[in-house]
């Protein structure tokens, strides 16, 4: 009897999982359909880009700076053991540009923007604002969802470029805390070792990170229920799933990049 109950619960959760995947797939396909169909909400996209991008900049900048500084300080002793301290700028730069910069910035973005979008849309749903849009003949999906996903997709790459640059500056300061490296020499070493194949794939994957952070935030907010409790749940699950999606996408991106390399 107990076994049957466990099997029943497992079946229900499996069914729930596939239902969720089906609904997310429909949501995604609706996004593409609505995104290409005029009218385009350009002014709202610009407004959202300011809100999602510009307002996230201080957080991403601070994180980027600390990341570069700490990575440099932590890497120095190991490189010193091998007598390879001169490799420090190049090694830190490659780590930052290829991997750490995009992933950390995307995680910060998921935490701030993903949760923000999730909570905002869930709260709008709870207070019937989305219904109010719909009954006044405005397409809420286009106005709320499409604009946020497009803005998130466009803004994260910009933030990652900024985070990478600030992070490299942090690395330069880190190098100078225990040594003496000229600013010009540091960046000469960095750019001598960086190849197009380091920068381009890392930049491309940030569009996907941004897209999924926006998509998951909107999806969780748009389908939130259970009243005010649902607002918190939507924000929370948006962060968790978006962060997980960033890691999964990163893993896929690394595999694809390795194949081409």
């Amino acid at each position, binding site marked *: 009897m107990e076994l049957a109950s466990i099997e029943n619960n497992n079946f229900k959760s499996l069914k729930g999982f596939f239902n969720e995947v089906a609904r997310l797939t429909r949501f995604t396909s609706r996004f593409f359909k609505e995104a290409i169909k005029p009218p385009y909400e350009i002014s709202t996209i610009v407004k959202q880009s300011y809100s999602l991008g510009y307002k996230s900049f201080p957080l991403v900048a601070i994180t980027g700076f600390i990341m570069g500084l700490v990575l440099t300080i932590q890497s120095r002793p190991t490189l010193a053991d091998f007598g390879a301290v001169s490799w420090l700028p190049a090694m830190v730069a490659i780590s930052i540009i290829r991997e750490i910069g995009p992933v950390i910035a995307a995680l910060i973005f998921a935490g701030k923007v993903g949760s923000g979008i999730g909570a905002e849309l869930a709260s709008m749903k709870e207070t019937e*604002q989305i219904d*109010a849009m*719909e*009954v006044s003949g*405005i397409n809420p999906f286009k106005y709320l969802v499409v604009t946020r996903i497009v803005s998130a997709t466009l803004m994260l790459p910009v933030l990652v470029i900024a985070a990478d640059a600030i992070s490299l500056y942090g690395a330069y300061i880190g190098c100078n805390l225990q040594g003496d490296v000229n600013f010009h020499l540091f960046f000469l070493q960095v750019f001598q070792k960086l190849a197009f194949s380091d920068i381009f794939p890392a930049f491309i994957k940030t569009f996907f990170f941004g897209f999924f952070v926006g998509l998951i935030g909107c999806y969780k907010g748009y389908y939130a229920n259970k009243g005010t409790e649902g607002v918190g749940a939507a924000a929370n699950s948006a962060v968790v799933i978006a962060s997980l999606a960033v890691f999964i996408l990163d893993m896929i991106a690394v595999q694809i990049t390795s194949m081409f390399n």
Partner: protein
Amino acid sequence: MEVIVAEVAHLKKSFDNISVLNDINIKINKGENLVVFGKSGSGKSVLIKCLVGLIEADDGNVILFGKNIADLTSDELNSVRKKVGFLFQSAALYDSITVRENLEFPLRGFKSKSKEEIDILVIEALKNVGLEDAIDKIPSQLSGGMRKRVGLARTLILKPEIILYDEPTTGLDPITSKEISNLILEVQKKYNTSSVIITHDVECARITANRMVIIKNGVCFAEGTFKELSESKDEWVRSFFT
């Protein structure tokens, strides 16, 4: 001869196998205020949400201006919806923008209107509800009654032919409730709109109703004027009015 602007025929709706509306049949005449009365949880709000297509009915027909909304494409439904106003229970104002922007929002679909024309419409709608001074406030700076008024102004800005009111006086003090009820009546007289008013506020029903319907167990249990129903022989019906 009375002109029917909206009709609900054999409407059925259930949630998770719990039947909310079993067989609802209602006709709304032009220029009439129809009050839908019933206990909390009797499906009144579900009924008006079905009426405007926010909730899809399981069975039955909803006909707005002669068109069955189930047969309409989303673009067609949107154009029909522009002739229907909806005042939500919470007023559903967009809380991140000002009152002016809230009122401008439904006009986004009308690209032909100039900024000056939009300004005139916004001010006129706010004057109708006596709140022209609140134009630059944000919803959190407004009281419950003011929010309802702004919600009504936003509904009026599209000059709808039918207005659906979901519990317009819930959560308001008796004086403000009476003001809102009188405002509903004024709107009906000024614009000759048809209205469906969902409420369990007897005073609101008394002021606004031309005709009333009482819902019980998912069906229209009783129908008539306020006077007829308040003097009904059925004890359950009469209990609403005492």
